[in-house]
């Protein structure tokens, strides 16, 4: 019996892939396959179930090249999207969205709630219908980086696996800092940083740490982390 809510194949080296799609057959998640709930409910349930899962370091939320992010009914959108957005924003793990092709306008808040959005640079002509309004990615500011469609998947997983090699606590605290610091006043910013640093140091103490290895390697002149990969 599989105790995890996702298929084992969906989790590779700390990177969990969740397929965002209207069609259940394209979603390999055990949870989504096993229920009749809406894609929104399935997504939220899956997110809740992996929130405290330390084996999940990074989440990739993706669609397939042949699919558009669509299939959302207006009533469901109005009711469910804010809840999905809330779930996504409360996830401690970084979420990387991978988007091929075009995106239904109603799905954009969901993508905005992801930390990083990588999208294909090829934009096919929008085909607006009465029910589905599609927008061009080229005019959007919710995309972090664009890649040619042929490279998108490789680039997304390269980034996701790179993130998964970071110190897990530092990764989660960095996400928290980026999310919260805008709401912290300049007068309170020092206290915010001090308490963050104290908390992370106490949590990192006594356990194998990428931080300790990185510092050791830097001090020995073996690596220059600022130079990037």
């Amino acid at each position, binding site marked *: 019996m599989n105790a995890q809510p996702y298929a084992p194949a969906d989790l590779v080296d700390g990177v969990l892939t969740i397929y965002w799609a209207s069609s259940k057959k394209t979603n390999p998640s055990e949870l989504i396959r096993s229920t009749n709930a809406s894609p929104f409910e399935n997504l939220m349930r899956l997110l809740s179930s992996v929130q405290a899962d330390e084996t999940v370091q990074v989440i990739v939320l993706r669609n397939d090249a042949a699919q558009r992010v669509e299939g959302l009914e207006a009533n469901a959108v109005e009711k469910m999207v804010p809840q999905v957005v809330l779930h996504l924003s409360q996830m401690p793990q970084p979420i990387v969205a991978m988007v091929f092709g075009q995106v239904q306008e109603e799905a954009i808040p969901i993508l905005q709630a992801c930390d990083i959005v990588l999208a294909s640079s090829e934009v096919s002509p929008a085909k607006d219908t009465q029910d589905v309004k599609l927008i061009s990615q080229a005019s959007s*500011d919710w995309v972090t980086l664009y890649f040619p469609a042929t490279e998108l998947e490789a680039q997304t997983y390269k980034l996701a696996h790179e993130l998964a090699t970071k110190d897990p606590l530092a*990764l989660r605290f960095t996400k928290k800092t980026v999310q919260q610091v805008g709401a912290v006043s300049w007068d309170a910013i*020092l206290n915010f*940083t001090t308490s963050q640093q104290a908390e992370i140091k106490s949590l990192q103490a006594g356990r194998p740490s*990428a931080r300790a290895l990185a*510092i050791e390697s830097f*001090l020995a002149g073996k690596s220059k982390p600022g130079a*990037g990969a």
Partner: protein
Amino acid sequence: MLKIEDTVDGIRCVGLNRPDKRNAIGVEMTLALEEILLKTQSDPAVKAIVFHGLGGHFCAGMDMKDFFDSSTRPAELLQRARKATEHWRIELLRQIPQKIFSAVEGYCLGGGLPIVAASTAVVAQRDAKLGLPEINFGFVPGGQIIKAVGEVMAPRGLAYAALSGRPFNAEQAQRWGLVTKVVESDPLQHALALARAT
């Protein structure tokens, strides 16, 4: 640690001058930065400040060898340096009456970014590399740095830079709002021209 040059038309050029360390901000440099900003803010002859780096790099961030837990610098000096850093980073850069301009080439990382973020205009050489590498050390970027950068940089770019620790180039920095103008060479001359025109 700093090379200060005043032009006849009231522009103070502040050069980060520690080229062997890619102008990483260590104890002495952070104290010097506090001092020059304090002096400059009450100097009516200075109309604008232009920050730049000597030796091909703007700034490699804070000198971690000085500020790591394993630092061998005297505790009292370290405490003074930390206080000075917060002073110029949180207060002086943001409150100084003169406009600030930055000329960026080479690396511009971590602790060097608040200077860039406080600038009215930033001119960067095309091959400059900017970034928030703290995560690569298992560190969390300071809230002060994230806040300063977040005030001018697109949230998408900020999250990518902070989480990945990857450097990004001048064009990308311009798309994300951190850089005003990308040039092929001599960003200092371009920054000076902008400062004079303002």
